[in-house]
C-alpha cells in the first residue's frame, strides 16, 4: 500500500509538470471537441495525430492521446443528451433517458449527471488500474472464444431490455442489426457478402451512417412533423444543477455503473461497449426510479455514463500489463509506444516507471480537467437548446452531413445515411426501436468471429458453450433474463387473446 502511494506520488510529480499538464489539457479539449462533432471519432483523430506525437517524449505523447480518448467519451454524451445524436456505441444508451430528460427541461441536470458520474467512475477506475492491474489481466486472459461468444449473446439479450415496447420486436431489431453487420468481406475467407458488388460495402456499413440516419436525421424529421412536441425544448430549460432528490437517485446508480464498467472494461474486444448497456439494464431493473424509465429517468443517464467511463479507464489494463490492446484506440497507443521504442508489457512498470505511473496519474488529472471543462459549459450547451428549432435543425443536418462524409471522404456514406434516415423514420412509425439494432450491428460481427473460432477449437461440438464455466454462466444469465422479459409479454397477449 505504501509502495502504491509512493508510486502514485511519483506519477503525480511526472504528470504535474507544466508540459505534461498542458498536453493533457490539449488532449482533453480535442477529445471533447471530436466527441461533440458527429462522425469524427477518437480512432480517426488519434491516427491523424500519431505523427505529431513522434517528436514528443513518450510520456507526454501517451498522456495527450489518453486525454483525447476519454475526452471523446465525455463529449459524445453531450450530443446524445442534447440532440439525440449518439457519436459512438456507448452513447446510444445515453440517448434513451438523456434526450428524454432534455425534452423535459432537465438537460442541465442530465449533462451534470453525465459529467459527475463519469468523473467519479474515472477516479475509482484509475485507482483500480494502479492497484490491481496485473491481477485483473489474468481474469481477462481466461476468456476464450466460447466465453466471448456467450458474453456477447448476453449483451444482445440485455440490449432488448433497452426497448420501451414489445420485447419480441426488440429482439427482431437486434437480429436485423446483426444481419446488417454481416455486410462486407468475410474476415475468414475474404468472400464478399451482401455487398452487391459495391466496393464501399466491402468494409461493411458504417456505424456513423446508421447511427446518424436512424437517430439524428430521423429525429429531425419527426420533430419537424410535430411542432408542438419540440417546443418543450425551448419553453422551459429548468434549473441547470441537479436537485437534491435527483442527486440522491443518481448516486447509487453511479456506484453500480462504476463497478460493472470497471469489470467489463478489462475484457479485450467489446467488453467496454457492453458496459453501458449492462448498466442501463441494471438500473432499469434495480433502481428506485425504474418506473420512470422511458420518460427521462436520471438513473438511466448516471449508471451507463459511469459504466462507460470506468470501462474506458480499465481498458488500459491489458495494454499496460500485457502489451495487448483491448480496442482500436488502444492498438493505436501500442503503435505510438512502439514508435517511441517502448514495448508495452509486464516489464513496462519497472522499465518505464515515469511513463506507467505518470500515465495513471494523468488519467485522474485528465478526468479533473474534463470536469472543469464540462461543468461550466453545461450552461452554454443548454442555451443551445433555446435556439429556435427552425435554426437548430439545419445546423444539425449540416454537421451530420459533413461529419459522415469526412469519415471516408466519400459521398456514398451520405446516401447511406439518407437510406437509414428513411428506415429510422419508418421504424419509429411502426414502434420499432433503433437502439437494439445498433447494438446488434456492433456485436454481431464479433460474435460471428468468436463463434466460428470456438467451433474450430471444439471440432464442431456445440457442447463447448456449456462446458466452459464462464460461458455456461453467461448463457444461464441470458436465458434467465430472456425468460423474465418474455413471460409478462406472453401473459399479456394470452390474456388479450382470451378476452377477445
Amino acid at each position: 500500500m505504501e509502495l502504491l502511494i509512493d508510486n502514485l506520488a511519483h506519477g503525480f510529480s511526472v504528470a504535474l509538470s507544466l508540459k505534461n499538464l498542458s498536453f493533457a489539457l490539449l488532449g482533453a479539449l480535442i477529445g471533447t471537441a471530436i466527441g461533440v462533432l458527429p462522425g469524427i471519432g477518437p480512432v480517426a483523430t488519434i491516427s491523424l495525430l500519431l505523427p505529431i506525437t513522434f517528436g514528443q517524449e513518450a510520456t507526454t505523447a501517451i498522456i495527450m492521446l489518453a486525454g483525447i480518448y476519454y475526452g471523446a467519451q465525455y463529449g459524445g454524451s453531450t450530443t446524445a443528451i442534447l440532440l439525440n445524436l449518439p457519436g459512438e456505441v456507448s452513447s446510444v444508451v445515453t440517448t434513451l433517458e438523456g434526450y428524454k430528460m432534455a425534452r423535459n427541461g432537465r438537460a442541465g441536470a442530465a449533462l451534470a449527471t453525465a459529467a459527475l458520474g463519469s468523473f467519479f467512475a474515472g477516479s475509482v477506475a484509475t485507482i483500480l488500474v494502479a492497484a490491481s492491474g496485473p491481477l485483473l489481466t489474468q481474469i481477462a486472459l481466461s476468456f476464450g472464444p466460447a466465453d466471448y461468444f456467450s458474453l456477447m449473446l448476453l449483451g444482445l439479450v440485455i440490449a432488448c431490455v433497452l426497448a420501451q415496447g414489445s420485447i419480441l420486436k426488440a429482439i427482431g431489431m437486434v437480429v436485423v442489426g446483426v444481419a446488417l453487420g454481416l455486410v462486407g468481406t468475410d474476415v475468414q475467407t475474404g468472400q464478399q457478402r451482401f455487398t452487391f458488388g459495391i466496393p464501399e460495402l466491402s468494409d461493411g456499413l458504417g456505424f456513423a451512417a446508421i447511427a446518424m440516419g436512424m437517430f439524428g436525421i430521423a429525429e429531425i424529421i419527426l420533430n419537424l412533423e410535430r411542432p408542438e412536441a419540440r417546443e418543450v425544448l425551448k419553453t422551459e430549460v429548468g434549473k441547470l444543477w441537479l436537485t437534491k432528490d435527483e442527486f440522491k437517485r443518481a448516486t447509487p446508480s453511479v456506484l453500480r455503473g462504476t463497478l460493472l464498467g470497471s469489470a467489463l472494461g478489462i475484457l479485450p474486444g467489446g467488453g467496454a461497449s457492453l458496459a453501458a448497456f449492462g448498466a442501463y439494464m441494471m438500473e432499469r431493473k434495480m433502481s428506485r426510479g425504474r418506473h420512470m424509465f422511458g420518460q427521462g429517468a436520471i438513473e438511466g443517464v448516471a449508471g451507463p455514463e459511469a459504466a462507460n467511463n470506468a470501462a474506458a479507464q480499465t481498458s488500459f489494463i491489458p495494454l499496460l500489463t500485457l502489451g495487448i490492446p483491448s480496442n482500436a484506440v488502444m492498438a493505436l497507443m501500442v503503435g505510438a509506444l512502439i514508435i517511441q521504442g517502448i514495448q508495452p508489457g509486464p516489464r513496462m512498470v519497472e522499465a518505464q516507471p515515469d511513463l506507467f505511473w505518470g500515465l495513471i496519474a494523468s488519467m485522474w488529472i485528465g478526468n479533473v480537467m474534463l470536469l472543469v471543462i464540462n461543468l461550466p459549459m453545461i450552461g452554454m450547451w443548454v442555451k443551445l437548446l433555446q435556439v429556435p428549432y427552425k435554426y437548430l435543425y439545419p445546423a444539425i443536418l449540416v454537421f451530420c452531413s459533413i461529419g459522415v462524409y469526412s469519415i471516408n471522404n466519400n459521398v456514398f456514406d451520405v446516401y447511406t445515411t439518407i437510406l437509414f434516415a428513411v428506415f429510422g423514420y419508418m421504424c419509429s412509425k411502426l414502434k420499432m426501436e433503433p437502439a437494439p439494432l445498433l447494438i446488434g450491428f456492433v456485436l454481431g460481427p464479433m460474435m460471428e468471429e468468436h463463434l466460428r473460432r470456438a467451433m474450430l477449437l471444439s471440432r464442431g461440438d456445440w457442447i463447448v458453450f456449456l462446458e466452459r464455466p464462464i460461458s455456461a454462466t453467461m448463457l444461464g444469465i441470458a436465458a434467465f433474463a430472456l425468460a423474465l422479459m418474455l413471460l409478462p409479454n406472453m401473459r399479456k397477449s394470452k390474456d388479450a387473446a382470451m378476452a377477445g
Partner: protein
Amino acid sequence: MSKPTPRRAALSLAPVLALAGLATPALAQSWPSQPIRLVVPFAPGGTTDLIARLVATPLGESLGQPVVVENRPGAGATLGSLLVAHSPPDGHVLVLSSIASHAIAPALYSGVRYDALTDFTHVALLSLNPSVIVAHPRLGPTDMADLARRHREGARGLDMASSGAGSSNHLLIVRLGQLLGKELNHIPFRGAGPAMTAVIGGQVPLMSDSLPSAAAHIRQGSVRALATSGEMRHPAFPEVPTLREAGFDLVTSSWFGLSGPARLPAPVTERLSREVLAILARPELQARFAEFGGTPGTLDPVSFTQFVESELARWGPVVRESGAKPD
C-alpha cells in the same frame, strides 16, 4: 464459383456501380503536394503496422509532407491493397505490400480483384522477416520434437493460431501439418495481436507468428519460441533453432514492401525509392529492425518488381499443392 448467377446479374445494377477513379494524375513536379496516405492492410499494432510506422515518419520528414498510416485490415490483406490499386496514381496513396496480399492471396482467393503485378508500381522492399513457432510456456509443447509427439499421439491433434487465413503464417501451418503427416487445426484470428492474446491466455497452445511481432513476447517469457523459419538462426535469438535444424525441411520468410497504384510517374517512383533506401540504411533503423528480428530490404524498384514476380511464382504452386482453402 464466381460464375454469374441470374440473381447476381439482377442485382449488379451495372452502370451506376462501375466506379472509376475520377482524379487525373497530378503533375509529378508538384509531388508531394498533400499528405501521403500509406494504406496498411493489417490491424494496428502488428508487424506490418510497426514497420509501416517506423518508415512512414522519417519518410514524411524527407518528403516534406506527412505520411499518414491508415489501417485497412481484412480478407488476407486484399482489402487495403484493392483500395490502393483503384486509387489515382498521383503518388499520394501508397500501400504496404506484403507476401500476404501480393504473393499468397492471388493464388488462394478466387475473388481477388487486382493483379499483384500489373495493378501496382512496386517501389521498394522494406523488410524480410522469418516466422517463429511459439507456444504457451506451460500448456504448449517444450520443443519441436515434443510438438510432433503430442500432435501425432493426441486423438484431436494440436491447435495452432495464426494472424489470419491466407497469411504466410497460415501456409506455414499447412506445410508443417503436411510434414507431420497430420493436419494441424488452424485457428485464424483477426491480426497477430488477438492471436497472441489467445496463446498467452492459454486458449490456443501454439501459434505461428512473424518474428518481429512475437519478439517482445518471447523476450518477456510470456510465450516460448520453439523454432524460427529462416535459413539460419536469427542473430537476435541465437538460442532458438531453425525448423530445418529441428528436422522440418521448411524455410520461409515473409516480406513487406512499399508499392503504389500502377503507372506511378517515374520521377515519383525514383524519389520514393531513393528516400526509402536511404532511410533503411540509417544505423538507428537498422538497430530497431535487428532488435525485433527483421532484415531491412535493399532492392530498387526494378529488382523489387522481379522479386514480387518470383514470389508469386513460388507461392502459387505451394498454395495449390497445400490444398489450403480459406475456410
